[in-house]
């Protein structure tokens, strides 16, 4: 139990630091810290499969993607957090309310033994898997669509109240990596 307390505390601290960091790169690294702590918690709960997946996806893929995106926008885009005085007390109060109402009421209810992970995921939740495939397809199309340069064989409509767009050099970005969602 102490393990979980320490790990969750580490996760929380890394999370707060991620939110408060001014430089984007630092923020991404703190997020990786959260992911590592979460991985360890999952492992200590016995959820080994998901721990491994969380490690490879969050610490690996998402961190790399974040670094890639940050380098694309310019690593020096700092973030000046806006702080309104009521933010922290409000969120803290909501949290206490939620935790107080829910956590004590949950009691472990042991039930019948279940299949192993592979059977559960691939067969019992097959509908989820199929939906995910469609989701991934939609995501890939979305990213490709968003990042490719636009051109049109129609004459462009007149732009009336548009701001003057900064003429950055159009970078045709080929999104080389698709999210490698290797199902375990």
């Amino acid at each position: 139990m102490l393990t979980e307390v320490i790990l969750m505390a580490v996760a929380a601290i890394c999370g707060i630091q991620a939110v408060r960091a001014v430089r984007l790169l630092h923020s991404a690294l703190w997020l990786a810290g959260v992911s590592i702590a979460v991985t360890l918690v999952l492992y200590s709960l016995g959820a080994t499969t998901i721990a491994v997946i969380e490690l490879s996806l969050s610490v690996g893929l998402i961190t790399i993607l974040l670094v890639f995106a940050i380098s694309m926008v310019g690593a020096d885009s700092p973030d000046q957090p806006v702080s309104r005085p009521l933010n922290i007390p409000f969120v803290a109060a909501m949290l206490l309310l939620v935790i107080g109402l829910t956590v004590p009421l949950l009691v472990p209810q042991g039930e019948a033994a279940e299949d192993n992970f592979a059977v559960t995921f691939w067969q019992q939740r097959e509908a989820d898997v199929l939906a995910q495939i469609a989701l991934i397809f939609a995501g890939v199309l979305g990213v490709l669509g968003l990042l490719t340069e636009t051109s049109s064989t129609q004459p462009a409509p007149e732009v009336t109240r548009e701001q003057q767009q900064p003429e950055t050099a159009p970078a045709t970005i080929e999104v080389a990596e698709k999210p490698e969602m290797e199902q375990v």
Partner: protein
Amino acid sequence: MTPLHIVLAGAFILLGIGLYGLLIIRNMIKIVIALQIMVKGAMLAFVVAGSLNDQLNLGQSLALTVITADTIVAIIGLALAIRIQQRRGTLDVDEFINLEG
């Protein structure tokens, strides 16, 4: 008070941290990071929920799906951020909030 309760409370705390982030963060990419923190909380919640019912594998399956779906959302969010940086020259979200009133 089992470890599961601690972790569930922690999941809610992560949610709270993420929400707090959404309130104060102004950079689009950092908002994606804040969303990811919230997702980790959700994932933990599912694993705990599964474990409470002795259906840990079901909980893990659900958590896996959550990671997949929200990773895709994060990727789209990042692509959008890159695009916005190119078009508007800024990633400051406060400039989006009031588009036309």
